Structure formats: structure tokens, C-alpha cells
């Protein structure tokens, strides 16, 4: 993919290897192809709005499509209200810490291969992605937030609200199909 993208936060240039920007159907295919994905949903999902909904609404749909989900911050109640019982409630640091362990999985069903972050505030998420980039080379990571995360393996580029909504809807649709 030839697309070059500047990190959302201009200063957040970690090194010469940065995330592969992905959008359109590629994102949906990536998620669909994962055998043991894990979705980590953070506190900003309760505030971020898109398409007249909250980001947590999209996260809940992804969880319902069968991705084991970790509720960080205080998002559990909101997920539950949307009919999702996450696999775990943990701090984002706790789940990221355990993901460095190649044998760990949230449900004990075998190690994850793709870790998806959603709604964890930009700077904090960037740091968590950095941990996994350096110390969990067995994993691939994907940020489904609107803004480019250079520390991930794959990240959405900096998107307009409607583009972002479309990407998320695509992923949900493909997973449910």
C-alpha cells in the first residue's frame, strides 16, 4: 500500500517503521481473517460520536459479531446495556501487559493473533500499541479509531467522520455475513 500518512499527533513519530494504513474493505477482511481476534474497548468510546451514534454502539456490534471483548475504563455498563457481556473487565494497562505473554488469552481458548483497540484515548492507546509493537512481536495490532496510530501494525488513516463510519459498518457487516 503506497499511502503515506502522518501520525494524527504530529509529534508522535516513533521511528521509520510505522503502521500500515488501511481503509475500505481491507480492514474488514483483516478482521475477518483473524483466527483469534481480541477487541479492547476504551473509555473514549462513551464520548466519541459518529453518524448520530456513539463509538460504543459500533464496538458493541463488533462484539456481538463474535469478537471476544475486553471492557476497559468504565465502559462495561454501556456494553452490557447494548446486550454485550465482555469476556473481561480490565484496565487497558492490565490487558496490554498480559498480551505480551504469548500464551495468554482473555478466555483461555488460545493465544490471540490480532488485537484491536477502539476508543482508548489517543495518547494512551499510542503507548499501549508501542508496548505490543516492541514486546509482543507474535501479535498484530489494529486501531479502529479515526486517527492514524503509527505504533499499530495496521491503523485507519486520519479519516473524515463519514469515512470512519463506513469503515466500521463494513467490518460489522462482513463479520456478520
Amino acid at each position, binding site marked *: 500500500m503506497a499511502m503515506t500518512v502522518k501520525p*494524527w*499527533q*504530529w*509529534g508522535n513519530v*516513533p*521511528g*521509520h*517503521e510505522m503502521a500500515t494504513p488501511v481503509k475500505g474493505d481491507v480492514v474488514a477482511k483483516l478482521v475477518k481473517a483473524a483466527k483469534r481476534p481480541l477487541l479492547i474497548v*476504551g*473509555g473514549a468510546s462513551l464520548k466519541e460520536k459518529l453518524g448520530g451514534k456513539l463509538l460504543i454502539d459500533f464496538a458493541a456490534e463488533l462484539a456481538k459479531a463474535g469478537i471476544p471483548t475486553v471492557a*476497559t*475504563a*468504565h465502559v*462495561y*455498563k454501556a456494553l*452490557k446495556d447494548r446486550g454485550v457481556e465482555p469476556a*473481561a*473487565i480490565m*484496565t*487497558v*494497562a*492490565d490487558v*496490554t*501487559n*498480559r498480551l505480551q505473554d504469548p500464551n495468554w488469552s482473555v478466555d483461555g481458548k488460545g493465544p490471540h493473533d490480532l488485537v484491536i483497540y477502539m476508543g*482508548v*484515548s*489517543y*495518547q*494512551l492507546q499510542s*503507548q*499501549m500499541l*508501542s*508496548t505490543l*509493537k*516492541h*514486546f509482543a*512481536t507474535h501479535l498484530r495490532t489494529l486501531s479502529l479509531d479515526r486517527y492514524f496510530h503509527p505504533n499499530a501494525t495496521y491503523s485507519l488513516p486520519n479519516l473524515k467522520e463519514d469515512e470512519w463510519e463506513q469503515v466500521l459498518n463494513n467490518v460489522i457487516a462482513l463479520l456478520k455475513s
Partner: protein
Amino acid sequence: MAEKGPLKMSAKELISGLVSAKDVEVLIGRIAMEEEWEPLGPTPFPQISTLRSWDHLLLSRYKPFYAPFCDYCCLCTYGKCDLSKGRLGACGLDMKAQTARIVLIACCIGASTHLAHARHMVDHLIEKYGEDYPINLGQDIAIEMPHARLITGIKPKTLGDLAYLLNYCEKEVTQCLSAAHTGQEGNYIDFESKALHVSMIDHLAMEIADVAQIVTFNFPKGDPNAPLTWIGLGVLDLSKPVVLCIGHNVSAGVEVIDYLEKAGLGGPGETVEVAGLCCTAHDIVRYRDQAKIIGPISDQLRIIRSGAADVIMTDEQCIRTNVVYEAQRVKTPVVAVSDKASYGLPDVSELPVEKIVEMLVSGSTPGVFLPDLEKAGAVVAITAIRMAPLRQKFKIIPDPPQIQAQASGCTFCGTCRRNCPIDLPIDQAVFNAKKGDFELLSMLHDLCLGCARCEQVCPRKIPALSLIEAAFQHKIKTEKYRIRVGRGPILDTEIREVGSPIVLGEIPGVVAYVGCANFPNGAREVGIMAREFARRGYIVTLSGCSAMVASYVRNEEGKTIYEEFPGTFDRGGVVNVGSCVANAHITGAAIKIANIFAKRPLRANYEEIADYILNRVGAVGVAWGAYSQKAASIATGCNRLGIPVIVGPQGSKYRRMYLGRAEDKESFTVYDARTGERVWIGPAPEHLIIALETMEECMVWTAKLCIRPNDTTKGRMIKLTHYVDLYKRIYGKLPPDLHYFVRTEADIPITFKEEIMRYLKEVGWKPWEKPSIDPTLLKRLIRAQV
């Protein structure tokens, strides 16, 4: 008795001179001179590796978790080295060690900053009051300097003793910093051990700085009823000349007040307003409560650009480094008094006061460097009086009608937002203002750090920060709150009262809100959390900028927490200890609990006291908006002493946490000191330092991190009541880790008994075989062996 290391020996051994190492001889001399106020413990004047085994014990449970900020190391000319994904640098260093090295460097910077501050303060005070000036904190504080006694084995009696202790601190900081040189330490755990060491020294340095100023300037000596004073952007009487002190070292601010009083101009606020920003503000009101606190570091540019100050005096730390430029824009002269921050200004020490005032008033120089504090006091006071009519509070924050015009060039390019450290929608706010809607701009006032990065990058040169301020101007007058003056240490008498209920768990915990408040909604969130925990009967202590901003949230009756709660170190008390250096009194209180209440030997007995605190004293530090290297060393110093710390989301940029893994039962075992048996105690506390995402999450974790293995059943029940209650409120269910904390049925909170019993049954919980033990991590404390 000695385990290892040249300094682990009895007082007798030391005094009889069994050791020959050169620096040890000096210590022997000093220790030998010391009266035998308590038998000397095993680790007087610990050196860089004396307490290494304690650090390794801690770090085997609380493993360093790294989140590098950058893939490269660029510390030597071999670099830049790409250390990403397991690669080694040209010197052989890996990413964990490099990240730990950066943490060590940050802690060294933090510790050396407090230490240099203490050195400046003590040398100045010795010059002024003599080295025999006594350390006397009044009859209710017999243990005046718990850190000094614990770490060094010395009971300081005079300012001269403090200077002696500083020599030791300076040596240790140098040792630790040198380990960061290329080709020195290479193991991340040992880097961390050095970070823990230098951060322990930081707490001693803070204690020295604060005690020195308390005794000489006659600050409140642990007074729970220290007076209430004013804080906020709206506190100044702008009809008067205004002196604005920025920084952390109050020696110079005191000279201004002394000059005004001696010159017959009255105390602060009578003819001249004396106000401060950051910790120097805390300390000028500890000196005279008629002085005013403007607020934390984030208010700096706001107040400078508002033109309120007729002269700015900077001392040290957390000052806008382009203060001279910003002050010039509003025609405010600057007097810099610290050689650590002299801003390229001309040194005028040799000139007479009148001449310097003339230079400043005429504008022939934007400011001066004047390290002679007494002279600086006079210059600042006179300059303020002479400048006030000339400046007429000249400001650069536009009047509200000009906002739209100044925003008119905005193209909504987003550059400002993408450079805002906290990702505020400043682009949207400016763009809305262009269209005449100022609401978002005004709302950003409470969220914004006041850093002006947005202005720096705007291709249209739009002064976004000034526009935020302009949109908020109509509310400035209401920015006025009551705060209790920093009271300094905790009284020994208070410790006697609360030692037992804290250690048994009946007071559910001590929560310390410390450090800066740099994050969106920071002020509000610290205020809300502090009130929540005070209402729940925790002891809430505060310091630094957190102590300031916690006053910004009023209760239903319009009262700030300082008006709502008493200032006693007791159940439901809200204790402002003072400036950053006063943080040492919070950790000092934990040390005193171990010593005064539990009668654990204090003198040079660091490991045992830290072990006691980790296992028994339910204290938690919350540095919700910490940004500085000082905050890194303060937090790390708490950690070595066994006190867990929570930082806010931005705290993840410190790059390192110490995280336990609750399910790793082996790591949460301790010795039962009675029998020597290894016993699982549950993950209490689960982490030593962790960055959390949201205020709600922080509240739940604050309650949880107060749980200690030693809680009695009643104490555990009380602590669990708060944890479960908060958890249910925020998550709508029981905490999923309850089975880790319920040892017997008697631990279960009565209000949730049935629900919890049902849950415990579901997860197959069984009462613990050994619910009550005498927990310790230290083998040598096992009594059965002796």
C-alpha cells in the same frame, strides 16, 4: 546482623571503626557523633546498591511494564540506534533497558531538582540564620524528619545538619545518574533499582527543603486549622500594583513580603498584591495568608497575557521557559533570581537597587538576573509600585468583540488540534468563533493546559489560547475559591490516633492527590474524587497543584472541600500539606505510622518500614495529571516505600508502570513472620504504579489499592464495602475479583452479603486456610528462625 554491604552493620561496629572504605569513614564519624537516640538499624546512609535486594523483591512481584515513547536511542554519537522489536543498540542495550534508563534519568532529574532546591534554600537560610538554627516543629512533632531518620540514621537538629544530609543526597544522585552513561548499567531491573534509590533520596531532599523553610519562615507546623486563603484567576485587586511570583522556591517571595513590611507598605494585599503561581504560591501563603494563589502551572500564560502582573519574579521549576518574551508582550519586567533559570538576562547583582529598578521601569532591559535575594525583594516591590501606573494592566488577551475578527482567518485545517498535547478540539472551537459562536472556546478554558502549542503551529498565526481566554473573560471574576494554607507535617499526636484504625483497616485508607493537574478536565476530576473519598471517610491529603485545583469544585452549598471538611489527618479530613516538597510529609506520615503506632524501629531501617507500609498501611497516591520529572521521582519514591500510585492517562508517557498479575499466586505470597511459612495474601495491593483511563476507573482502583493483607476482618469489610459500592455504581455489577479479597465470610460487607455469597459460590470460593497472618517479604523478620 549485617547481611551484606559495607554499611549494614551495628552501631558498635561502626563506632569501633571496623570498616576502612574512605567514604564509610566519614559516615562513621558522623554516625559516631550522633547521640544513641535509638539503636542503629542495618542500613544507615544506604548506597546505590544497599537496598537492591528490596528493590528486586518488589520488582519480582510488580514487574516493570514498558511503553516506549520512541523507537530510537540518541544518547551517544553511535546513535541513533533503532531498538524496536528486539533490536540492540550499538552499545548492546535493548529497549527495556533503554526505557528503564530514560526512567532513571527522569527520576534523577526530578530528585536533583528538589535537591538543588533544598541546597539553595538551606545555604541561603544558613547564611541568614546561621548553621546552628534549630529544627523545631513544636511539641506535637517529636519525629520531625522521618525520612532523614529512616534513611540515614541521623536525627537532624540544626540547619547545619540539613546541609550535611544534602552532601549525602548529592553523592547518591551523582552515583545513580552516572549509571545512565553509555556502557554502564545494562539490565532493566537494575536500572529500576537505581531509579527507586534516587527517588527515595528525592523524598529526603523534599523533606529537607520543606522542614528548612517551615522552621525558619515560621510556616504552620502541622496545624490542622491552618487558615483559609484565596485561590483563582479572579482573586487579584487589579487597582493595586501586582507582584507575580512563579516557581517553587519561596526564599525570594519571602524577601518581597519582608521588604514591603519593613518599608511600611503593609502586608501582602495592603498596598501591593503579592500572588503566586505553582508551588511558590503555596509557600507564600504559608508565610502570609494575605498573599494570593493564582493557580497551577496551566494558568501561567493566561495570567501573564492578562497583564495583571506589574512585575514577574521567577525562581525555579515549572516556569514557562519563554516567560521573558511573553512578559515583554504585556510590558511586564521579569526578575529572575535562580541561577538554574536565568533566561539570558543581564546579571545585575553588583548594581544598586535604584539603578536596577530604573533599568526595569525604563524598559532598557526586559528583565534582570538577580540572585541576591534580599536585593531582589526590594527591586521587585519598588518596580511593581512604579510600573503599575505606567502599564495600566496592559494586556494582549483580546476583548470579546475582537474574538471573531481574530478568528476570521481560520481555515479549519486541524493543525492546532493535531499538535495539542491533549487533543482538544481547538480547531473546531476557533472555526466556530469565526462564525460568531464562542461557546466551545469558552468551554475549553477548563480543559486546556494553557501551553500555546496550538498557536505555535497555526499557519494563519491565530492566537488560539488568547481567544479561549477572551471567550472566558466574563467568567473570570467568579474564579475565586477558598483553600486551606499548606499545613506541613502530620502531628505525632494525630498518628497516635489514626495509626490503629488505618493499620487495622477501619479507616479505609489514606488517599494522596498530588502533583500537577495537566489533563482534560483535570481540575474538576481531582476535586470530584477528593470529595468522594473524604465523604467516604478516607483521609484525603493533597499537595502541589492538585491541592490547588481540588478547590475548584464546590459542593451543593457552594463550599470547596477545604470549607466542607476539617483539616485534620483523621477520618474524613482533607489535608493540604503544601507545596511539592511537602509531599515528603505524606510519605513521612506512613513512616510514622509504622514507627509511632507499630513501634517498628525507625533508625536506618528502610526495608522493614517499607515492608510494613506495603503490607499494612492502606495508602495510595493519585497523580492524576502528573507531567514533570519531579512527579516521576516522587511516585517512584512512594513505590520503594511500598505505596502504590495511580497516574492519569497521560502518565502512560512516563513509559513505565510496575504491574502485578493477580492470577500469579506465587508472586503474591509472603512469609508469615510468626512461622516462616509462605502464604498467599491475594493481590493486595495489585500494582505499584499504573496509568488509568478515566476518573471513574480511578475511583474504583483507589478504593481497591487501599486493601492490605494485614486488614482485620472489620477493616477488610469496610474497605470492601467502598470498593464494591463504587464498583456497582460505576460498572453495575460486583467486582469480578472479589474472591481474591474475601478471606472469610466475616470479610463480606453486610450490605451486599447475599449477593456476594451467591457470587462466591458460583466461582467456587472457599474460606482461606490462613486468613490472618503477620505478613512480610523479609526473611530476616521471621521470628521462628531467631
